[in-house]
């Protein structure tokens, strides 16, 4: 495989050498620079929906998502400014206000990425009114459950099911604020014929929306370590086939 051209650019004043086919997020992580993310997960395709990883670029007012933006020679990227900090808190406020995230009764309390992001960005209150929608819990699957109240629509479950498991049981139904995760033809999860019950979706879910049945408050710990491994194997086969 032909490797892309090498370029140099800056993140937060630090000089960084990079290949053109590496995203700003990958490069920041390689160089120990923290950028918060939610919909991004290494090993899955990029989505660019949560907007938490937006960064500033010198010379323009526009913000760019680090997970889908590739650096160009001489670019100066800033990941940590008051503006970005405020906006990241705003995004989290929006997510908390959108559905019903009550940490104290959640299986993922203490192990939740959304909760963790609120802590790390210092989001300690929600200024916008809570929308409090009435949402269902799907407990029809023998092993797992889906609580729409805790879903942040990151679509990690949709992507892992399609890209890694190959079943594409999940997709998104509707649009805008009415969008939901859906199994097959809007069926109870337990009746979705395409589901292999592999549980990958549960492991990659950042919140308590997808959980293992029987887990009580704060008992759900997720392990997505299989993902970089599986996606690398998958990429290896595909390159050989070419």
């Amino acid at each position, binding site marked *: 495989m032909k490797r892309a051209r090498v370029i140099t650019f800056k993140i937060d004043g630090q000089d960084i050498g990079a290949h053109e086919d590496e995203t700003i997020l990958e490069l920041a992580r390689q160089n120990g620079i923290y950028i918060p993310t939610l919909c991004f997960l290494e090993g899955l395709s990029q989505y660019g929906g949560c907007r938490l990883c937006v960064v500033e670029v010198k010379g323009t007012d526009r913000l760019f998502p680090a997970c889908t933006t590739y650096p160009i020679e001489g670019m100066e990227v800033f990941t940590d400014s008051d503006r970005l900090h405020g906006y990241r808190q705003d995004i989290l406020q929006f997510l908390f206000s959108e559905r019903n995230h009550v940490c104290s009764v959640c299986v993922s309390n203490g192990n939740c990425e959304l909760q963790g992001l609120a802590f790390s960005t210092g989001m300690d209150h929600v200024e916008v009114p809570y929308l409090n929608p009435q949402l269902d819990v799907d407990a029809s699957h023998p092993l797992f459950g889906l609580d729409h109240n805790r879903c942040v629509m990151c679509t990690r479950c949709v992507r892992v099911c*399609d890209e890694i498991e190959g*079943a*594409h*049981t*999940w*997709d*998104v*139904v*509707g*649009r805008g604020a009415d969008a939901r995760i*859906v*199994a*097959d*033809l*809007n069926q109870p999860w337990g009746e*979705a014929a*395409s589901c292999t019950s592999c549980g990958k979706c549960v492991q990659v879910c950042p919140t308590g929306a997808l959980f293992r049945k029987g887990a009580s408050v704060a008992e759900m710990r997720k392990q997505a370590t299989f993902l970089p491994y599986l996606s690398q194997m998958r990429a290896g086969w595909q390159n050989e086939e070419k």
Partner: protein
Amino acid sequence: MIKQKQAAPPSDDVRWRFVMATMRRNGFRRSALIETLHTVQETFGFLDEESLRYVASSLNTPLSQVYGVSTFYHLFKLKPAGKHTCVVCTGTACYIKGSSNLLKQVEKDYDIKPGETTPDNQISLLTARCVGACGVAPVAIYDGTIQGELTADKAVALLERYQDD
């Protein structure tokens, strides 16, 4: 190499031929999904579970993706419409000229919301974002015929003829 099987239509209704033709013209590719759903809706009036399953297996597209696409686009209907339809335009020009009053009146008189059908299955109330007849705003489309320069009273009066036929 796994051999692809061609799915059989859900029934021997001859109209499935139109759906088949659309899919064949597009080489049964996944990209033909929206075109095919258009044909199903044109042919049968709405998209039911049976047809979604048939289209999904014919185009080798996951069921959830088919469902996701059919619910993303507002023109696709998953439920049959009433005998008559009334589409009130809520485009800007119509809004400025009072289409919201018109809509409220119809909603009140028939006790239905946009997207719903009266219990007797006579009238479906819908809204559209601009039908491009802004010159004669406010407008509504009654069973495919555009009626311009409406008032709330006129809009309801035009519906009354659908009451019991």
